[in-house]
């Protein structure tokens, strides 16, 4: 499907936000965001609805202006510049295709508005249509296309502009699961091939984990954590990130409920401190955290067991073929699998979490 596509002539710039906030009449959408989205990287703004991720994208696009702060693209301050002067393209959640224009007219809309020569328009359309597999659909109207095809047209409209930055606002959320999985691979491939700087907004952590070079996790108008998918999964910076990343996400239980596990905890921790354990890190054992089995879900490849430990519940992921579990048993986990979060702020307690010499692995001991 994608054969003919040279990388961009211009190098893709980085996007830099410094102290960016956006206040509306009755709400604060963003409070003082500082983030750098590297050049040529696939950055994902990830968070629940209402966290401000779309607002940040619109500020970068120039469709909205920040209340305070500065947005720089390629080192140049963008304050007051209209979207067209920012040298970027955008894919909308609703696709924003012009319903009265054909696929070809939709893709060429920007070029014809900017009065690009006819011959060049035709050449670029030919190239992009072949790249996106739209050659046979060029004469159709958007209403005659499936959701996936409309998505491709929206993408083609962004790609044909040959602008080095592409902003995407939940572009896959209206597609069915199978198509979404295909498009994830394809989007990533296009970004790599063209060397684009992509800023991608989503609430779907699977999309973020599979496509991103860099994930920016946002919550309530703030940035919770910035890092590679691996960093965010392995060392969540806050209880929020821990609960948000992973399918199923990390279980968080009260420190008090860890009693009897035989874990040698660092001294001076509040009993309300949150303990995070990933379902896939846990394993039944002869000794360790005593748990009671509550329910079990069969997922095909594996099983998800809901357990009770003290007053908390947690999840355990088992291979589908693993032996059946008794009603009461013990859990253990490898070194480094236990995460500690401050009960009040939700921040990761990094001073104590990493392995200390001696008993610091936070693993049940006999």
């Amino acid at each position: 499907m994608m054969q003919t596509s040279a990388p961009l002539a211009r190098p893709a710039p980085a996007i830099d936000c410094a102290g960016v906030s956006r206040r509306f009449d009755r709400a604060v959408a963003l409070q003082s965001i500082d983030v750098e989205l590297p050049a040529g990287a696939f950055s994902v703004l990830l968070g629940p609805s209402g966290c401000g991720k779309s607002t940040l994208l619109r500020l970068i696009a120039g469709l909205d202006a920040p209340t305070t702060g500065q947005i720089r693209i390629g080192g140049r301050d963008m304050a007051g510049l209209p979207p067209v002067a920012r040298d970027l393209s955008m894919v909308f959640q609703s696709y924003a295709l012009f319903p009265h224009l054909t696929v070809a007219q939709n893709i060429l809309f920007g070029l014809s508005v900017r009065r690009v020569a006819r011959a060049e328009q035709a050449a670029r359309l030919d190239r992009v249509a072949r790249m996106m597999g739209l050659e046979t659909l060029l004469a159709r109207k958007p209403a005659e296309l499936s959701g996936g095809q409309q998505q491709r047209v929206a993408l083609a409209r962004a790609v044909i502009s040959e602008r080095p930055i592409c902003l995407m606002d939940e572009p896959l959320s209206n597609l069915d699961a199978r198509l979404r999985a295909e498009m994830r691979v394809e989007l990533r491939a296009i970004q790599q091939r063209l060397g684009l700087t992509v800023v991608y907004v989503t609430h779907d952590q699977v999309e973020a984990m599979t496509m991103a070079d860099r994930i920016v996790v946002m919550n309530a108008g703030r940035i919770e954590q910035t890092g590679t998918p691996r960093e965010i999964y392995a060392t969540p910076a806050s209880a929020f990130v821990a609960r948000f990343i992973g399918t199923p996400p990390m279980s968080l239980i009260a420190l008090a409920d860890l009693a009897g596990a035989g874990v040698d905890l660092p001294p001076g921790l509040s009993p309300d401190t949150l303990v995070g354990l990933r379902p896939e890190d846990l394993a039944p054992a002869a000794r360790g955290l005593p748990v009671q089995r509550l329910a079990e879900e069969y997922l095909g490849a594996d099983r998800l067991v809901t357990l009770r430990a003290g007053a908390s519940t947690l999840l355990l992921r088992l291979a589908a073929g693993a032996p059946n579990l008794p009603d009461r048993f013990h859990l253990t986990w490898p070194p480094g699998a236990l995460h500690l979060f401050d009960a009040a702020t939700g921040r990761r307690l990094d001073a104590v979490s990493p392995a200390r010499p001696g008993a610091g692995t936070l693993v049940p001991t006999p």
Partner: protein
Amino acid sequence: MPKREWIHAWLLLLPAFVFLIAFTHLPAVQTLIDSFWSTPKGRRPAVFVGGDNYARMLADPILAKALWNSAVYAALTIPASVVLALAMALLVQARFAGVALMRMAFFTPTVLPLIAVANIWLFFYAPGFGLIDQIRGLFGLPSVNLAGQPETALYAVAAVTVWKEAGFFMVFYLAALQAVPPALREAAAIEGCGRWTFFRRVTLPLIMPTTLFVTVNATINAFRLVDHVFVMTRGGPDNATMLLLYYVFENGFRYWDTAYAAALTILLVAILTVVGLGQFFAADRRVHYR
């Protein structure tokens, strides 16, 4: 039991049928029949005259005048009211302080009965002390009787129609404009599309169905809305504001020449049918329906 279902279906349709047939279809057919008969008078009943009533039209100078006036009236009021309606809708589609008041002001003429509107405009047009003459007086211009002189009477009547209709059509345009997704405007802004280009290339095509609907209505109204002619000019002066429908009324209910009025009515229906069909077939190819 298909038979019982059929009886139920007919019973449910019956009330609508009775009223439609009694007040629409029968009179229409009766009018068509009447147009081939002479007008019954006193002791002389109607006799079949064939196409005499229609032949009479060809030699009727007032009818020719009325047809010409109707054409001018339509050519003035249809584009003027549609363009004005779109302009007003564009003005009040945004949110700003006082927009509700402005929308109401634009819509008010629609709520008023045309007879009342005509009376208001008579005061505007009144020579000497009317609003228009007072404004003309400020600039030292002489008094004019806009509704009372043959050169301007038709335009004076047409202006009232435009004033009356534009607010009504504005509501349809307003609804159509609000239905254009804001994301389209943003997508266009990213491409560097200016306001005028966006209006011409996106907004205008997207509201074409409304334009067609509004134009058909304006066309029908151009032949149908004559209430203000009764109040303002009664077809005068010197038949300057004689419109086709008003001429039908004059023949039918002033001169009681019902047979000729019936024939004129058939002419009116024929014109409306041709114009309406033509509009749909001509416009349908260029209209994008969502």
